């Protein structure tokens, strides 16, 4: 490539020389047309002017055209077909047609070899640099035909690349900043979890330790974030939103670790292993020429790649980029094209996108580099769900589906199963370019990912589906179906390859399902419009452990260990009784935290356990032994707390008693004045003026009882 470039540079020199030649010709013409009779004002041949041109016409010389002037308007198009003289005219026509779109072309120059064959590139000069720039932007990478792809540059680029300094100046490495132990919270001796809270309508934010018997505030800050708080998926960082960008906080005292400048960020998304961060701003700062979407390296804070969002044409769906579970790939869908990118190069995988006509949505398996996508129905072609392996793009499984109105993909958290919820119709009708469906019913297509050939099972439900949720660890799933007041919650399980119906709770008021992160336990919740009813169910035998409610609750969150559940009434949805409550996984209320303007409560996530499966089994087996120890510990901390409370109360009581004693003395001193005001009658106590009291007997009718006495 380098030789090619230098060759082109030579040719461009050649073109300059040609220009020079032309100029000389012009001068000759002037001489020829001169007026011979005019007196000769010329200096003698040997006269040496002692005035320099600079002194004489310095101001004009400034405007003297320079060799490089006009170079900005010249572009080089490489990669055009090499043709002989006979076809050159045709080539010129084609090139002209493509490039005259961007502005007026002043000169075209096709360098030729000794056989008068074009060399495969061309110099084009536009009337102004803006046109040249536009032409480069629009046609670089233009595909003329299969063999010919243009690479277009500005002529000035050559100077830029030629003048690259030969001596590499190594960038100075940034000093290493020790952020301390970012995972310190995992070493908490009591295994308490942390959570973040936004309150006072967003003005205050805090991180608490869920300690017993009272939570401990770890860090409280005014205006910590301008919108929400977000924990990274493994809990290492806490992200805050600001006018100018995003900040990450972490370590023992929640110091700022990294800043990302991207003004007015609306959404963010961490990659699953926290290596990268995607930020989206619908209106980035134009001064810095920012783009709407930026992908950052979390550790270095460097911008890895930026994208434009095509949000004018399609509504913004977040996350725009979906990550593979190991951070190796990320993908984005735009108008029937699935673009998969690789890390750390951030280039398009195999340099090409996956084009699937009619593709509607896709998702990654949470455990493997597998993408599932679905294609809508088109006339006689059925809808289709396809699983492909990345990076090979090998199709693992495809399933055709008929009468499909919509599909939703739900992966089980371990990636063992994929459930595609299919909305199917009996009738469809086209109305104003939109399809209307009627007689909807629902199918669950369950893909058994871990079995050979990935077999698919199907469950049909006739009623409207409100919610679906996989047990995160295990093989059960729960469904809320039906319309009020006939809402039911059904549980299904996968056993020996087949799907079996397990349990149905009928006539319930629920619209959300929250599985414990460890499976087995589930919270059924009727949030917002359903007044906040909560039911805690053990799905091993489907006992309802507790029925309760948090009136008008808007959110329910499990802690990452599955020991606690929080419910909250957020100020964002409801203006009164804001606050959050903590429950045990069995539905016993632990504490109510009413909080003015409470907005959001988020548990700090934990990374996956490092313990081996055998070790976990062993711990489970010896649970009885451990639980005795923990109970002692809990009781001790409880009694310590109550002791502290009692001591505090004692002190407060003593203070108050001494205050009352003072007041009592003052009161006694003023007795004469009081007696004076009330004509000498002592009214200090109810019974201090006995002669004022009259004993009165009041009789009143209590009950009338009629009894017929036996004759």
């Amino acid at each position: 490539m380098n030789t090619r470039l230098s060759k082109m540079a030579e040719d461009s020199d050649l073109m300059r020389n040609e220009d020079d030649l032309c100029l000389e010709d012009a001068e000759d013409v002037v001489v020829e047309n001169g007026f011979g009779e005019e007196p000769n004002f010329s200096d003698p041949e040997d006269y040496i002017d002692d005035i320099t041109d600079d002194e004489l016409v310095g101001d004009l010389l400034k405007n003297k055209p320079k060799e490089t002037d006009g170079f900005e308007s010249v572009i080089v198009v490489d990669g055009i077909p090499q043709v002989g003289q006979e076809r050159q005219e045709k080539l010129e026509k084609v090139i002209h047609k493509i490039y005259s779109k961007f502005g007026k072309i002043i000169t075209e120059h096709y360098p030729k070899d000794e056989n008068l064959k074009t060399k495969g590139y061309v110099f084009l000069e536009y009337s102004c640099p803006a046109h040249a720039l536009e032409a480069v932007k629009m046609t670089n990478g233009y595909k003329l035909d299969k063999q010919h792809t243009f690479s277009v540059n500005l002529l000035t680029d050559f100077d830029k690349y030629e003048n690259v300094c030969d001596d590499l100046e190594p960038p100075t490495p940034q000093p290493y900043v020790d952020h301390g132990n970012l995972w310190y919270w995992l070493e908490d001796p009591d295994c308490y979890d942390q959570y973040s809270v936004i309150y006072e309508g967003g003005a205050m934010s805090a991180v608490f330790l869920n300690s017993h018997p009272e939570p401990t505030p770890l860090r409280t800050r005014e205006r910590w974030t301008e919108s929400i708080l977000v924990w990274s998926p493994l809990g290492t960082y806490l992200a805050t939103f600001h006018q100018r960008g995003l900040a990450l906080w972490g370590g023992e005292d929640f110091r700022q670790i990294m800043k990302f400048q991207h003004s007015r960020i609306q959404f963010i998304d961490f990659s699953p292993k926290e290596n990268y961060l995607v930020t989206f701003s619908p209106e980035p700062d134009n001064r810095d020429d920012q783009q709407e979407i930026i992908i950052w390296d979390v550790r270095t804070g460097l911008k890895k790649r930026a994208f434009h969002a095509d949000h004018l044409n399609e509504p913004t769906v977040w996350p725009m980029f979906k990550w593979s579970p190991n951070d190796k790939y990320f993908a984005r869908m735009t108008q029937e094209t699935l673009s998969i990118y690789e890390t750390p190069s951030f280039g398009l995988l195999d340099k090409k996108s996956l084009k699937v006509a009619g593709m509607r949505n896709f998702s990654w398996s949470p455990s493997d580099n597998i993408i599932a996508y679905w294609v809508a129905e088109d006339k006689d072609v059925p809808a289709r769900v396809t699983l492909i392996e990345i990076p090979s793009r090998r199709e693992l499984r495809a399933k055709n589906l008929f009468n499909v109105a919509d599909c939703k993909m739900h992966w089980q958290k371990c990636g063992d199963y994929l459930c595609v919820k299919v909305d199917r119709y009996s009738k469809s009708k086209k109305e104003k370019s939109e399809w209307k469906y009627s007689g909807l019913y629902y199918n669950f297509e369950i893909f058994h990912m871990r079995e050979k050939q990935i077999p698919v099972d199907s469950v049909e439900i006739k009623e409207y589906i409100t919610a679906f949720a996989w047990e995160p660890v295990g093989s059960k799933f729960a469904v809320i179906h039906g319309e009020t007041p006939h809402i039911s919650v059904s549980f299904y399980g996968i056993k020996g390859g087949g799907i079996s119906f397990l349990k149905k709770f009928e006539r319930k008021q629920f619209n959300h399902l929250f599985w414990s992160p460890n499976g087995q336990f589930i919270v059924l919740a009727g949030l917002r419009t359903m007044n906040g009813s909560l039911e805690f169910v053990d799905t091993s035998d489907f006992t309802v452990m507790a029925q309760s409610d948090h009136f008008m609750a808007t959110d329910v969150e499990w802690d990452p260990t599955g020991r606690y559940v929080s419910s909250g009434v957020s100020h964002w949805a409801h203006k009164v009784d804001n606050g959050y409550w903590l429950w045990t996984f069995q539905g016993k209320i632990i504490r109510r935290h009413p909080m003015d303007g409470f907005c959001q409560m988020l548990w700090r996530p934990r990374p996956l356990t490092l313990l081996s499966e055998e070790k976990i089994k062993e711990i489970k087996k010896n649970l009885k032994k451990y639980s005795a120890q923990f109970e002692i510990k809990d009781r001790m901390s409880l009694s310590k707390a109550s002791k502290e409370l009692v001591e505090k109360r004692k002190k407060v009581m003593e203070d108050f008693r001494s205050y009352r004693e003072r007041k009592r003395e003052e009161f006694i001193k003023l007795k004469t004045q009081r007696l004076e005001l009330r004509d000498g009658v002592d009214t200090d106590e109810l019974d201090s003026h006995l002669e004022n009291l009259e004993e009165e007997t009041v009789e009143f009718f209590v009950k009338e009882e009629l009894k017929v006495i036996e004759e």
Partner: protein
Amino acid sequence: MKPLLLHGHERAITQIKYNREGDLLFSCAKDHTPNVWFSLNGERLGTFNGHNGAVWGIDVNWDSTRVITGAADNTCRIWDLETGTEITTISTENAVRSCGFSYSGKQIMYTTDKSMGFESSVYVFDLEAGKQLLGEDSLMKAQSSGNKITSAIWGPLDEYIITGHENGDLVKWDVLTGNQIQRVQEHKGTINDLQHYKDQSMFITASKDKTAKLFDTATFEHLKTYKTERPVNSAAISPIRDHVVLGGGQEAMDVTTTSARAGKFDARFFHLVFEDEFGRVKDHFGPINSVAFHPDGKSYSSGGEDGYVRVHVFDPPYFDFLFEC
């Protein structure tokens, strides 16, 4: 503890008060007729007929001979308790919000609302000066510029008047000069009610800012705060135990938009010193507008937006209950 239900009013109760001995319970409401009841059995003793507007405040003097009422018909009236007849009517420029007898019972005060170009004001009259009794000349008049007086009580020994204001201010007025002696702002919202401790050395405020606070009467020192999730309309201090009772709930205008459960119309009991809530009495099906302890501390009453007055006699366990300390 089954309450006595006093059903004599047709509209929302605005204030209830016991006389000094506690044998009588006075109530006034948005209907025009204040009532007086036997607190022991809930039997109605009589009514005070004459007002043509919602009655906002009622008080009785120490020897239970006179009753004063203030109403939205721009009058403040003084009644003979024994006969229920009107003794005098003082016409005012505006609706009367609160009224009361001084410690000696020889002076009265009332406060007026702000409207029609008149500022909210506090007035004091001497009942023994004949002219004043006709409302022609007041002993003292003081204006509260721009900031409406929403509740008022006498200080001890006829010396000053304490007013609570719309913006949460507490002001102490000199009865002789009409000057402001002291002003503090501890509340963030309207002060709906003020009530003394039995010896008048402390008083409790009830505010729309969802709290009730205990103050030292002489210094206005803020002593304690009792927090709830709803506007507090009224608060009272037990004469025998370290307890306070708070009444309130969702504002009356919002009640129809939420269920009774969300309204939180309970009477709530707090420990006077520890500020901890230890009990609730669920009873009214609207906000509680006024609460009062019986002077013997063995019962309390509440009057609600629902138009009922309820007299609750405490069960024995109430007297055995002790805070751990």
